[in-house]
Structures are given as structure tokens and as C-alpha cells.
């Protein structure tokens, strides 16, 4: 899978003010790529640990591994 495309997604995420992103927000970093294809690219980023999931239980979002802290969530601080 294109390393360049993956790089673009991460760069886009880093530039955003928000820390959590919907899947179709991430796709804005890849305007020329079809969503089903973008899904494969984003899957790889998840598998490589370069992005991680955040889920409300009903909706899923994506964030950088450096954001969000399980320890804090567990202390009820998030």
C-alpha cells in the first residue's frame, strides 16, 4: 500500500485542532482515493499502531496513539 498516502493521512491528522476524527474526515487527506481503497490504507495505519480507534460504543473515531490516555480515562478524568 502506498506509503506516501499513509504519510499524508498522518500529516493531515497532525495539522488538525481536534484530536478525534471520523473515517470520512480522514478521507479528506486522500481526495483522489475511493473510500473502499482508503479503508485499506487506514486499516494498515491501525495495524502498524500509527492510528488508534476511539469508540463511543455507537460511533467510532480515529486518533494518534499519542493522544488520549487509558490511565486518565480510567481515573474518570477524560
Amino acid at each position: 500500500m502506498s506509503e506516501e498516502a499513509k504519510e499524508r493521512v498522518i500529516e493531515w491528522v497532525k495539522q488538525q485542532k481536534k484530536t478525534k476524527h471520523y473515517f470520512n474526515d480522514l478521507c479528506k487527506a486522500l481526495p483522489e482515493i475511493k473510500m473502499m481503497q482508503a479503508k485499506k490504507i487506514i486499516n494498515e495505519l491501525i495495524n502498524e499502531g500509527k492510528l488508534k480507534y476511539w469508540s463511543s460504543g455507537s460511533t467510532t473515531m480515529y486518533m494518534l496513539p499519542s493522544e488520549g490516555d487509558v490511565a486518565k480515562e480510567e481515573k474518570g478524568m477524560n
Partner: protein
Amino acid sequence: MTAKHATPMLDELEKGPWPSFVTDVKRMAQKKEMCQDWLGLMEMSFRDKEGHWKHGGIVGVLGYGGGVIGRYCDRPDMFPKVAHFHTVRVNQPASKFYNTEVLRKLCDLWEARGSGLTNMHGSTGDIVLLGTTTDQLEPLFYELTHEMEMDLGGSGSNMRTPEACLGKSRCEWSCIDTQDIIYDITQEYQDALHRPMFPYKFKFKSSGCPCDCVAAIARSDCSIIGTWRDDVRIDQAAVRAYVGGEFVPHAGAQDAKREAFDIKAEVIDLCPTKCMEWDGKSLKIWDEDCTRCMHCIRVMPRALRPGLDTGATILVGAKAPILEGAQLSSVVIPFLKMEPPYTEFKGFVEKMWDLWMEEGKNRERLGEMIQRIGLREFLKACELTPDPRMVNTPRYNPYIFYDPAGVPGGWEHDGKAFRERHQA
């Protein structure tokens, strides 16, 4: 273990003739301190009329975007054992068949790795394991997959755990093999189940006949409901036996003191499309007008049966009210044979998903998107032909917009040139 927290309000719920979840939790609290704190927290909520659970977060197992729902208590200072109380969804086997050995193993596993409390089953269809801590998630997942050959179910913006009625395993009315269909969808779309990429949740449910025991038409974004396209099978001698009081209607599922069976009042007049006739000797069904509602078959199961040329009707767009009101699924494919490997069905599913991923807004269910863009656009994108069976009521709006592509010969309209000629 004596009770750690006094629970006078919860204790009220143990009174009366019904089984009580409080009694169940207290029993588990003998072994698990987590359940003690759970009882204390609930008592506080009942007393103050205020919830203390938070949900959502980044917990989960590696590589999976669903299956675990992070839950936290906002008073860990008072109830430290339920500081985390994550919910785990486990993909139930098709139609929920287990043997007792599996259930025992699952309960043992959950007592070791979680609160011991389960919900068999959640409204989603999954086995719901209630309450564990973050450090237990990976070991639990390992044991679940390696020792029990079970997998997590869906949550978040993914394909949710698909669900089937009993289908051909136990039901003579099943027109399709719902268990095989649901198992096949589960295997084929593993990626959609575990790695959420949709605008929101997406559910498949399959019922073998229009009785719709899993309520697919109300609860799934894509409902696969068994039907037939030939005729209702009629055994005229058995119809006469019902009328003569020899057979008990509704298979006896009624008050024992019921009146004598009245075929006109109980069957003929209740047929929604009025397509049945009874002349005192034989029953006639005008099958071209029958909507396959199953009513007559349910009343006289020994006399009437679904036809033999069976398949499924595919409907889309049901949802419970959140953003918009509740909605039932609408027919988009009136009849599909539904035979393995379900190639035609999957072709449709993938076109539908492509459209929803491209067009759907965040947190917009498929049915809401169709309401927004119109069924016509949906059908076009999925390469389906409009059909009268998709129509609930004839239109009452007299204005019809034709698409040049839909009219033989078509036409071209040059708006600018038109304005040139009609200047006033």
C-alpha cells in the same frame, strides 16, 4: 461475604413474584467484590436519581475497532472495584444454539476475567459480558478465540453482529437458510465487522419467513426476509377439518375456552389484501394479490403452507429513533433466490456500502440517507429497477419529474437558449 454496601432500595426489587436481577447480582457478589461495588453504586443512583456511568473511550483489543465498549464509573473513590466496568460483546452462534459445555466454559471464563455477570442476549443479538477491567481484555480475547473459538461482536461504526431466526433448524415455514446466510455474511465481511469505517452502525438480520421472528424489518439496515413466488400450498381436506372442528386453529396457542372456529371472521376477512374466498367446501387464494403476510398459514398450519419456489425479499433502511424518527425497512429487491455463495446479494451490498460511505453523513443511518437523497437516487446507485412492489401507497403528488435517461429517445434541454427565446 457480607454485603459491603447497604441496599434498601434495591432490596425492594427482590420482593414480589418475579425473578430479580438484584438477587442475581447479590449471588455473584458472594464471589466477586466487583459486584458488591456495583450494588453500592446502583443504590446511590436510585437514591439520588442520577446515573454514574460514563461510556466510550479507547479501550479494546489490538487491531479491533469494535466489540468492547469502555465503561467507567465517575465515583471510583467510593466504588473502586467498578472504576472500570467495560462491556464485551461476543458474536453469538447463528440462531443462538449452544450446548451446556460451551455455556459453562464461557461462564467460568467470565468469572475469572470479569464480573461474572452476563446478559443472554443483548438486543443486538450478541452475548453481552458485563463489566471487566482494561488489563483483562487481551487475555479474555485470547482465551475466547483460542480456547472457545468464539469472536467479539460489533460495536461503533461497523457492521454489527448479524442475526438470524431459527430458520430451517426448527421451523417448517423457513423459506431460506437464515443460519447459513448469516454465517456467510459474518465470514465474508469480517473486516467490516471488526474495523469500523462506515458513517455509523450497519445491521443485517434475516428471518426465514414474513412472520419475521428477529424483527428484521424494524431492526436492521438490511433485512433479508424469506418469501415465495409461487402459490400458497393448500390441503383442502385439512381446511375442512379446521372448519369442522377436528383440528385446533393457531396450533392451540389460544384460550382453551375459545368459540368454534369461524373461517370467515378469523381468516378470510383478516386477509390484508382480501384475496381469499371460502364457499363452504373449498378455499381459493388469488395468489397474485397475496402479500405473503403469513396470517392464514399461522391460523391453519396443517392446511396451508408457504410455496416451494422460495427466496428472500431484501429491504433496507430500518432504524430506531435517534436523529430522525423510527423507520421500517423498505423493499428494494422484491425477490432474490438467496442460494450460496450469495453472489448477487453481495454485489448489491457492496454497491449500497459504496454509496453510503461516499454520500452518508457522520452518524447518519442508511435509512436516513435514503430519506435525504430519495429512493430513486438509491436505486440508481445500486443499479436496481423501480418496481410497484416497492410502493406502499400510490402517489398523491401530481407533479412527476422525468429523467431524460428514463424516457425512450430522451431529450436535451438548453436552459440558456430557452431563456433567450423567452425573455419576458
